[in-house]
């Protein structure tokens, strides 16, 4: 299996011969021309050999284990598809989780694949280069297996068919896109903190572990297999992210303030991105294993505390936003779901008001907030819907200039008040969802003035389907957003009465009757 070299060589020595011993310092071309990006962020590295390789996989072992994983994974997918496995999920509402997932996740895995290729090209040390390359191809694995696992659902349900077109154009996917665009346009070390550390180490656990366990609980063998199989690579990725942080901090004390600013920035940016994941757990899984709040406590608070207690020896402090995220864990999933419910025409997935027993579950899981702030809103919407006056917000949202989230989160300490911040830069006013986003902007205004905000761009005539004449006398900006998004009408609006709901019921009935 692994390189069976001379018995004298242990795992570590063997691995050194197989990786960093291959590299040399170039002399015909200067090193700073061969690796031009490692200096400009201000991170000081004195000795790349001090990098520790935690997982020591040579390529033959990598191929052996990855091939075994892929063989199993595709065997399960094929069987699931051949047996109409999509009809064995708990209820058709579940499929909306996959719609949100397909739109938001594989495109970001793809960005991770490209980003890690870039960092792999730029890192000077052989250790981090090899680990980054391996992560890059792993990320190819992830977006492809995710697409492959959901591909069969696309044949039977609406709203999945245009994910590739929508990834760069859909308003609510813009926050995730800005997250990865931000990371990939930063230098190699910031990318490592953003994706390798904040995203992989601090946050992916909460994205995948409880969520995929939830998919399993709801009978989706395909998503479960793909999700857990992807996670088996994630342990390697998390370790790379943590190693990179330690390496930077050990190399030079001047790196600490830079790294700390990145940790603060990216933990916050990642947290904002997770609001929609939490919403899936609390509202979209018909059978639930744990609330977002519980998952947050285990995988973010407890695990994050362990991590930052440990990193305190380097002088690293808990991310600035930590306290605010703890306060928000009882609010954001409700605010997000209500936000999506209010825009039935603008999402390629269905929404619904939770059933009474589901509302009770939320009351129990969120004793401090749900009955007080959110249950009344949902019950109000429910009454309106039943009275034929379904709430429908047709206006353009207001977006944060940094995280691009719709501004909808509450003022810290006051759930009844919406949080707005603004700043003026070069005579122009910019808006934010929070103090943290405002601070990120003020640290790098030249970067964040560039943010592509689709609600603004649409009004400027930049979001039109091909062939639109924006100079025509009757042109109205944003009037053809559905065509621009390639949105299938059948995929929008309420789950109740949807084609998905009817088809699922009809097909399941065929399986139970003669």
């Amino acid at each position, binding site marked *: 299996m692994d390189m*069976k*070299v001379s018995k004298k060589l242990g795992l570590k020595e063997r691995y050194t*011969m*197989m990786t960093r*011993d*291959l590299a*040399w310092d*170039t002399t*015909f*071309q200067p090193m700073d021309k*061969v690796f031009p990006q490692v200096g*400009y962020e201000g991170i000081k590295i004195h000795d790349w050999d001090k990098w520790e390789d935690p997982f020591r996989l040579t*390529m*033959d072992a*990598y*191929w052996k284990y*990855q091939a075994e994983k*892929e063989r199993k994974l595709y065997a399960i997918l094929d069987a699931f598809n051949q047996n109409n*496995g999509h009809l064995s999920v708990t209820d058709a509402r579940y499929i909306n989780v996959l719609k949100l997932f397909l739109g938001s996740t594989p*495109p970001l895995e*793809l*960005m991770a694949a*490209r980003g890690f*290729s*870039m960092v*792999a*090209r730029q890192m000077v040390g052989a250790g981090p*280069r090899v680990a980054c*390359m391996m992560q890059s191809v792993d990320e*190819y*694995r992830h*977006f*492809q297996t995710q*697409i*492959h696992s959901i*591909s069969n659902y696309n*044949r*039977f349900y609406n709203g999945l*068919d*245009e*994910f*590739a077109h929508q*990834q*760069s154009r859909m308003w609510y996917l813009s926050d995730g*896109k800005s997250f990865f*665009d931000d990371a*990939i*346009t*930063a*230098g190699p070390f910031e990318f490592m903190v953003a994706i390798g550390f904040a995203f992989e180490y601090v946050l992916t656990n909460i994205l995948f572990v409880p969520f995929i366990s939830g998919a399993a609980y709801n009978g989706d063998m395909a998503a479960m297999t793909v999700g857990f199989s992807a996670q088996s690579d994630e342990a390697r990725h998390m370790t790379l992210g943590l190693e990179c942080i330690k390496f930077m901090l050990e190399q030079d004390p001047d790196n600490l303030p830079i790294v700390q600013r990145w940790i603060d920035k990216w933990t916050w940016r990642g947290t904002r991105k997770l609001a929609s994941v939490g919403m899936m757990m609390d509202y979209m899984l018909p059978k639930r294993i744990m609330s977002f709040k519980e998952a947050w406590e285990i995988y973010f608070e407890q695990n994050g505390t362990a991590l930052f207690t440990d990193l305190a020896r380097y002088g690293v402090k808990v991310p600035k936003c930590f306290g605010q995220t703890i306060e928000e864990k009882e609010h954001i999933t409700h605010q997000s779901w209500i936000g999506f419910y209010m825009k039935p025409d603008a999402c390629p997935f269905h929404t619904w008001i939770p059933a009474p027993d589901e509302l009770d579950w939320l009351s129990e899981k969120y004793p401090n907030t749900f009955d007080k702030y959110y249950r009344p809103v949902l019950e109000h919407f429910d009454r309106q819907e039943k009275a034929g006056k379904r709430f429908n917000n047709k206006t353009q949202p207001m977006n944060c200039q940094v995280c*691009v989230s719709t501004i909808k989160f509450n003022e810290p300490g006051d759930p009844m008040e919406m949080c707005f911040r603004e700043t003026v830069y070069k005579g122009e006013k910019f808006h934010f969802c929070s103090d943290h986003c405002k601070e990120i902007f003020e640290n790098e205004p030249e*970067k*964040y003035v*560039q*943010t*592509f905000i689709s609600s603004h761009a649409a009004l400027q005539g930049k979001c039109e389907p091909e062939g639109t004449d924006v100079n025509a006398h009757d042109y109205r900006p944003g009037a053809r957003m559905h065509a621009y998004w390639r949105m299938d009408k059948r995929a929008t609006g309420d789950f109740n009465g949807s084609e998905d709901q009817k088809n699922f019921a009809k*097909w399941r009935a*065929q*399986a*139970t009757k003669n």
Partner: protein
Amino acid sequence: MSMDLRTITIEPLRQTFGHLARRMGADKPASRYMEGTMDLQPVENYHYRPTWDPSHDIFDPARTRITMKDWYALKDPRQFYYGAWTLARGRMQETATADFDLADELGLATGYPAAGKKVINEVLLPLRHVAWASNINNSAVAAYGYGIAISQAAAYACMDQLGIAQFITRLGIAFDEIDALAEAKQDWLEAPVWQGLRHYVEDMMVMDDWFELFVTQNFALEGLLFPLIYDKLTDRLNAAHGPVLSMLTRFQREWFTENVKWVDAVLKAAAADNPANKALLGEWIAAARQRSVEVLTPVAELAFGTDGAAVLDEVVQQLNARAAKAGIPV
């Protein structure tokens, strides 16, 4: 409620994703390669310009002088998406590992004649550093290439080259020549015979145009080096000392035969897109061939003595034939 989901037949609403149906011109099932490759890279509405390259977008066709009406025409004839690639490599490494185990068990490598070992130490072992250079250069194509068709295949090639560097290392260890690996590295860094080649791969590391880099590294240099070593040199050593070297370099040989299909298909598609591409590729290949021959000449002499030039000329003819087949006059 018992359900037998297998027995029911239901009519799908559609066969594939919208972007694939438009590409194929019909709503029909698409391969897993297509699902995992086509039209997936973002092409617009980028939020920010790279701080490391503000004159370009994150993904930008202007990072090469090659132009394409459709960047996904640069598809991989092997249809390697991650799963297909890793399964293929998994099988190859299994065979290679079994070969190394057998050679170890039967003492085939350690008993290899000293004259043969000397050639392996001097000629083959330094090539692990050439593979490492190829790994770096392919990572640049994977990073800055346009479209997922080329970027993913380059990412796999990059890992393949790391694997090759490791198989060469393992070869050195199998022949019980750990010190020889250190000497080979010293040669790579200092011996005159290798400095031309090292100079060349280092020059590639600072090449701006990723497509030119692809042509130079993957088509020209490897197109000469691999047949020179894994075909001509192994043949010669096998004739003198028995076939064990072929057995322990099987991975490289099989890999090259397969990789050529990809490299040639990419060149062919780019040349077919427009005449300017064809002319540019011709220029690049001519320049890269000339310099590759220059830097490989001392290596060929080290390997083949006075036959060096003639053997090198044979592999140059093979390369020319490949270029012609791809529709590129050189």
